[in-house]
């Protein structure tokens, strides 16, 4: 499964009012933008590992929102302790998707520890995340993502994808433009919640 196709399949979920998306840097950010940027998308273009930490910060601050985090194997491996923090507070409005291509693709494709058997879904489960699973097929991913969005329980979902991505990761959306527009969007959802 290609990550771009997986993102395209679930894109309609991400358009729903009250859903907010936080992604890691690199291919994930560029591919989601290529499908169409929206004001409820925030791309954390550095600070590797902290997308899930930002996600819990938003989820605990705004329980009425549905927070989707698009993480990666390389990023999550940098913040495994964060899984124990997710599990401790287990926000019911957070869906944590980990695209696992077993590779640090954006810096030349060096293999990560998931290529030698480390299982991020099992690590999340052992950390105490209540719903964990691994999916490998596009249809299974689309179904599982819909289930997770409806579950009302913290989910960490590992999605095995091919180690392919776009030619360039730099887009014409400036980091601060994205940051301030995202903040304003979250404020507007609070000011006019319907």
């Amino acid at each position, binding site marked *: 499964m290609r990550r771009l196709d997986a993102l395209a399949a679930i894109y309609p979920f991400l358009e729903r009012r009250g859903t907010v998306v936080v992604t890691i840097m690199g291919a994930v950010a560029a591919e989601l933008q290529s499908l169409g940027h929206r004001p409820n998308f925030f791309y954390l273009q550095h600070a590797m590992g902290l997308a899930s*930490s930002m996600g819990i910060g938003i989820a*605990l*601050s705004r329980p009425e929102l549905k927070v989707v985090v698009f993480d990666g194997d390389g990023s999550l491996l940098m913040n495994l302790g*964060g899984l124990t*923090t997710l599990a401790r507070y287990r926000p019911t409005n957070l869906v944590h998707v980990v695209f696992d291509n077993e590779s640090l693709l954006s810096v030349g494709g060096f293999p990560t520890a998931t290529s030698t058997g480390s299982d991020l879904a099992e690590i999340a489960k052992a950390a105490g995340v209540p719903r964990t699973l691994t999916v490998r097929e596009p249809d299974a991913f689309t179904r599982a993502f819909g289930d997770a969005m409806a579950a009302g329980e913290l989910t960490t979902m590992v999605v095995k994808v091919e180690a392919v991505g776009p030619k360039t990761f730099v887009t014409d959306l400036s980091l601060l433009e994205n*940051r301030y527009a995202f903040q304003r969007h979250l404020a507007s959802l609070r000011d006019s919640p319907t």
Partner: protein
Amino acid sequence: MPVSTSSSQQVYDSLKAAGVRLISALPETWLVHLIRMAEDDAEMTLVRLAKEEEGVGVSMGAHLAGVRSAMLMQNHGFLAAVNAIVSGAQLYRIPLLMLITARGSFGERDPWQTEGGLITEHVLDALRIPYDTIHAPADVARKITDAQTLAYSSSRPVALLLGRSLMWED
């Protein structure tokens, strides 16, 4: 345990008065009362961390979501969070309020705290993070308010070092 309850209460009350409603923390001796106060307060969201750099991400998310937050950590925890501060809070212009216990200064009895005490302020200078140290209980409220004001007006991280004379009674 000679950690000052009254100073901890002043720090906590000042954070509440400044509108802080989310605190992320990693336990350290000088912070035990502050963390307990946050835990016992139904109006406060306390996020206990595995490592301090997570707290930068948590505060970034809270800020963009419209909630005022603060981080409580030891200076060695600040050192552990440096990349998150630079490539998270500074890159994205987040008004991050950090309260950092200044371990390893004059009076420190724990040998393992002494190395970090030598360099904390130099690292803050190198990162161009404005900081001040609170030594006296009478300064707590004003310095916390002023620190948060600058964090918001500059959209940058700021730090308050909690000194031994404030936090430790012996």
